[in-house]
């Protein structure tokens, strides 16, 4: 099989979950707890860091991907 390369993306720290996913939860009124229930190995402190990252940048969903 051909080797497939992908573009870099912004991830929740110490995970392979895109920050864009976290944005979906926020946009739909879900909570950090809901996000953590979906990805139980992710630490709350890392989700909080990701939220800080969102606040600190001019963040578009395209950028997040």
């Amino acid at each position: 099989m051909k080797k497939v390369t992908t573009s870099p993306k912004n991830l929740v720290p110490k995970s392979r979950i895109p920050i864009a996913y976290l944005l979906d939860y926020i946009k739909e009124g879900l909570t950090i707890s809901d996000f953590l229930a979906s990805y139980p190995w992710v630490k709350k402190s890392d989700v909080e860091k990701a939220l800080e990252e969102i606040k600190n940048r001019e963040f578009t969903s395209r950028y997040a991907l």
Partner: protein
Amino acid sequence: MPSKKPKIQFYADECFPVPVVTYLKSQGYSIIHAYDKNHIQKLDNFHLGVSRKLGKVLITLDRDFLYYEQASLRGFPGVIVISAGSTTPPHIIKICEKALKNINQALIKESLIKITMDKLIKIKEGKIVFQKLF
């Protein structure tokens, strides 16, 4: 009369929300999550290899897998990429309810199926070979 069709077995990678796996199990689907196997922080290729080894169809939200539409998946059980807007469990459950009943083993084998809001698209070695609205 019970169906004699072979049941598709799924392997959800780490991008797939755990509550959706729990829901699908409750609906009778055979599905395991990467987390059940402690396959966390792994590359896409790793998850693809696990799905092959286990003989289970890889199901993911990770759009990076769409790059595999150009590759041959010969020898692989198949890959399903849900690319339908939001990644939250309520939304993904709705999409799964509509889409998965349209997929059988013959359709998915050695192929990539992209699921959008209203249709599934089967892609084999870079070519769209089947589309169905649901």
